[in-house]
Structures are given as C-alpha cells and as structure tokens.
C-alpha cells in the first residue's frame, strides 16, 4: 500500500467536510491524514487528504469525491512534484538538568520552543511526516506529556497551481 496525496478545492460552506469524510467511511477508504483551510478566495477551501491504497483505489476516491456537488476540483499530487508539510506540538517532561539538552535537540530539528513551565516544555516542529516522526522519537526518552499533530498540507512545486475552470 502506498500513500497518495489529494488536493481538493471545495465550496467553503456548511456540511462539505462531513460529505467528504462520510464518503471515505462509506466506501471503505482510509484517510491517513487530513487538513482543511480557506484559500485566497474566501468562498473556497482546500482539503489535503493523504490516503493509503493502490492506484485503482486512489482513482476511485478521486472519482467519487468529484461527484460531491461542492467539490470543485481535485488533483492527486505526485510525491516528487509537491512540497508537503505538517505541524506538531509536543509537550515534553523536563527538569532543570535536562532542559538544555532538550533545547539542543529541538535546535537540530529547527523546532521552536513556544511554552515552558518548571516541569514541561512545549516544542513546535514543522516539516515532512518523516521529520516529525524523527523528532518525536528523539524526545520520547524524556517523556512526552501530550502531542497535538495536524494533517499534512501540500502545494505543487513550481508555477503549477490548482486553477478553477472559468
């Protein structure tokens, strides 16, 4: 099973997300990650979905999504032709002794320390899925209190865009 990334432009109105997500459940497709946000045009949102499956399944996902009235445009992005990023906030257990060490690790990953308390430290890491996984693995040893992770979001490399047909 491979991972595919779909970029989907949808009408920015109520109920769109439940239509999209419901379709995945109903047809037995697996969402690996999902993120949503508005675009330059406030009436349009972009949903980025990572799915796991074979090429036929991804084609079915794409065709079924197309049938949703509020789905305006879909593109399956190729791994080599896109930039893809996710974000994670990790609350790590700390003590005065190891705090410096953790900050060093964070620096290697170009993570930001965005909150600190006597017993914890919250780091923010942006990057590919692999980078985020690697960071989490590095700090696991110190003890992780909490993690909040976003779905991946992606754009095509170069001048290509997901344009609307006029």
């Amino acid at each position, binding site marked *: 099973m491979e991972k595919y990334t779909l970029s989907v432009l*949808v*009408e920015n109105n*109520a*109920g769109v997300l*439940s*239509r999209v997500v*419901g379709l995945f459940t*109903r047809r037995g497709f697996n969402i690996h990650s999902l993120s949503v946000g508005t675009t330059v045009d406030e009436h349009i949102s972009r949903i980025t979905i990572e799915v796991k499956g074979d090429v*036929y399944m991804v*084609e*079915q996902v794409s*065709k*079924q999504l*197309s*049938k*949703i*009235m*509020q*789905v*305006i445009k879909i593109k399956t992005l190729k791994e080599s032709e896109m930039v893809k990023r996710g974000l994670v906030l990790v609350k790590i257990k700390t003590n005065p002794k190891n705090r410096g060490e953790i900050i060093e690790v964070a620096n290697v990953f170009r993570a930001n320390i965005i909150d600190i308390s006597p017993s914890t430290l919250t780091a923010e890491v942006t990057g590919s899925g692999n980078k985020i996984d690697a960071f989490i693995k590095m700090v696991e040893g110190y003890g992780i209190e909490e993690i909040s992770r976003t779905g991946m979001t992606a754009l095509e490399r170069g001048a290509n865009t997901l344009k*609307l047909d006029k």
Partner: protein
Amino acid sequence: MVMTGADLAVKALEDNGVEVIFGYPGAANAPLIESISHSSINYILSRNEQGAAHMASGYARVKKCAGVCTATSGPGATNLITGVATAYMDSIPMVALTGQVATPLIGKDAFQEVDIIGATLPFTKHSYLVKDCAEIPRVVNEAFHIATTGRPGPVLIDFPVDVLKQICDPEDVDGADINLRGYKLPGKANESQIKKVADALKRAKKPVLLAGGGICSSDAVKEFNELVDATNIPVISTMMGVGVLPSDDERYYGMIGSHGAKRANIILNRADLVIAMGSRLGDRSVANAKGLERANKLVHIDIDPAEIGKNMQPAIPVVGDIKDVIKQLMPMLEGYSVRADWIDEVKEIRGMLEYTRPHNDNGFVDPKYFLERLSAKTNSDVYLTTEVGQNQIWCVNHFNVKSPGNFLTSGGFGTMGYGLPAAIGASRAQSELPVIAVMGDGSFQMDLPELGTMKQYHIPVKMVLFQNNRLGMVHEHQYLHFKSNYQMVNIEDGPDFNKLAEAYSIRSGYITENSQIDKAIDDMMSDKESYLLVVEVDPFEPTGDALNENKMTAQEED
C-alpha cells in the same frame, strides 16, 4: 406582492413543470401543503411516506421527469428514506421535500426533529438545508437540474418550518439561476476511445452487448435497437436493462446474474468481447468479476466515471451518455456485422436450454405460465411493476417486456413494497396503458395500506397477487443453503386477500388451477377500476428454471 417561503417553493415547483406531488402532511411541511392548495399542482395523499416516495419513483419512470414527494420532519422524513435509497440505487430522478423543525430549534432534539440531511447523505445525489427563503428559487431549480441531468438520482431539500413561513419580498430573492460550479456533467465521449471499441468489435469473434438501465435513463432504446439491427450482435441484459429489446426478440438472450437465464450467463462467459452499456456491473449481475477482468474482454460505457473501475477494471473504458456514444459508434461500424458462426453458437445455446413445462393442474397455478398468458393476452402493452422476490424474477424471465420504460422494478436496492405504490405513480402519470402490479403475498403486505390511496384517487391498478403463504425467495434460499430449516418465512393465517379487497371496495378474483388463468385475466383486464387477482402458487415453485433446475418437492420439507 409578498410571498412566503412556501409560496416561493411552490412557484419554483410549478416553474419546473411539477403537476403532482405525492406525500404526507405534518406540522413542519404544513405551510408547503397550504401553498400547494393555491397552486396548479395536485397532491396525492399516501398512507405512509415510504409509499409516497415509491409513487414518485413510479411516476418519474413513466413520465420521464423528476418525481416529487413530501414528508414532514422526524418520523415522516425517516419513513421516506427507503424510497429515496431505492431511487438512488436505480438512478431514478426524484426531488424529496421534507419539513424540518424551526431553525432556532435545530440541534436541540426538538419534537419530531431528525438530521435528515445527515441520514440521507449516502444515498442522495445532493441535498440542501434551506436557511433563508431568498435561496429557495435557486435551490429548487438546482435540485431539479441535478436530479434529471447526467446520471439521474434523488435530491432532498429540507425546509425548516420558519423558513417556509418567512415572508419574503420577491425583490429580495437572490436570483433563481443555477450556480453549480462543482457539478461536472460528462461531455462528448472521447472519440479515440470509441474508435478502440469499434476496432475491438471488428477483431472479436464472439462479441455480446450487455445492456443496463442506463440505456433507459439516457432515452437511448431507439439508438440501441438501431445498433443491434445494424450489427446483429447478441444482447443480454441486467435487471434494469430488461426490455431494451423485447424479451421475445430472437437477438435477446435474457437477463444475466444469480437469478438470470442460464443461457445469458453462458453467453457472457463464452463471449470474447463484452460491451457493457449503462450498467454498474453489480455483484448480483456479474458474480465472476475477476474472470471478466482477466479475460481482458470488457468494454465499459457509462455516464458516471466513478462506475468505471469501481467493480471491475475494463479493457476499454468509455465515459459518456449512451445515446451519444451509440451515435458516435454507428458510423465506425459501417459494413460490420457479427460473425455468423457466433450467431449459430448462441442459437444453439438457446436451443439446448429451451424446454416446455407441463402445466398440470394440481391445486396450484404455475406462475410462469400465468405470466406468459398475461403477456400474450395483453400483448404486453402495459406498464408492469413488480415487488422483490420470486415474483420479480418470474416477471423478468416469463413476461415479454417490450421496453425498459414499461418495466418498473427495484433492481439495485431490492425493496419489497415498491411495486404497489410504484404502480399507483405509474398509473397517475398516464392513462393510455393499463398498469399491472405483480406481487407476492409477502411484499404486498409491506405497502398494503396504499390500497386506500388507490381507491381514494380512483387510480386503476391491476394487481396480480401470487399467494404461496411464504416469503418464497428466502424459503427457497433456506432450502438450498440451510438444509430446509424453514424459519421466519411462513406467513400462513394471513388475511383473506379477497375479503381485504372487498373492505376497500376493490373487486377481486381467486384462482387455483391453470385452466382458470385466461378467464381470470379477461375479468381483471376488462374491469375499468382497480382489481385484485389472487393466484394460488405452490410454495415449492422454484424461482428459476435455469440455475436451480431441480424442482423442489414438498416431501423435502419434512
């Protein structure tokens, strides 16, 4: 002039050519009913919302437009659901109008509140929750556009009662124009793909056309017949495709699938090129999907791109409207005709499996022979509806259906209780041809109260009720797969159906012998009003005469 939201909705329905609405009232859709009463639109009150939805479906299939039904919020709306899902699975154009609790109460678990949009998401083509009366004209216009174009299907509009009552100055209406940039209708099919189909046909030794319901939906029966006339390619069909050629046409070899004709299944397997037109290639039609894929012999033509590759990967996919595709294909097949040895082979297959049944009188009527007689005596110039179960398969295999538009059945969803209300809808849609509802005693009892609707509105339906005091198809299933452990299939001690008809002032007949068939049919068909003919059938009468060739015997029940 001020209008209410309901007035705007009804005005938009009129603009979309609606003449009749099937439905059931309640507090939430009451403003709509009120506005309908001041309009040119008639209504038919069903006895259950499910019946209203099936009536709208039967009406839509005959009238070739979107059928409209209405229900109130909560239980009214949930009762409608089975009818909406039935329409969805058979791609029937429908607009369902539901009342909803007032906007401020939505989400508060108010009296008779249900999230009907959420409930019907999986089986509507689209749905709307109207939040402001200014949207109504556009929403209604879009609903009809979506329901009737491309691959047809049901669209549901949920109207909160306060929006229906809302006073709206027509000046404030934000336009009635359709605005659907996300709605993708397929354009003209790719010419090079069609060229590939033509080339594959010319190379093929044993081609067959597999006709689905899409041929009827796309109004391409005439074009399909022209294609068959020109090429002589043998035709098999799915259930929704029954009638693309008259069932007695010598080029038609029957319905495929688990309850299909054995000869049709053999031909499907022997063919080296299968051209599927307007079919989902569902599991009941094509059991051996992988076999078709491996043989690399499938051409799949459909208007819905998502159907292609859903159940099977075709060798040649074509996305397009069947009517246009056939028109594009025809000139490429100039001078082509199917090979004579293949025709000889399929004729031999037919001959091999043709047999005549004895019609002995044994206290039961042979339902297959009955349907053959019904077909002959009416010249098949009727609309025939069926329920789901043995009665449905008997009709497919023994009634000579002349056109798919004249055969109304729940193919995809397999909804018992469909045939009777669908017949009411079909009869309401036209008065030229008689409407016959063929039913089993199980399915009849699912929507039996609609006899009241039939009577109240003087809608004549000829009802043939095969009575075997069993849920026959499951009974047979238990015989075949559960060692004759007959459970939950006995419906003996049911009502006396003739007395029941009498209670509704509907005339009726009752026969138990084959020798009574012709006269009983004459009595039924010559009656100007509705008529119920109860036909006593052997509980051990097999569904097929092909797949389950061994006739069950009563002794085996012990």
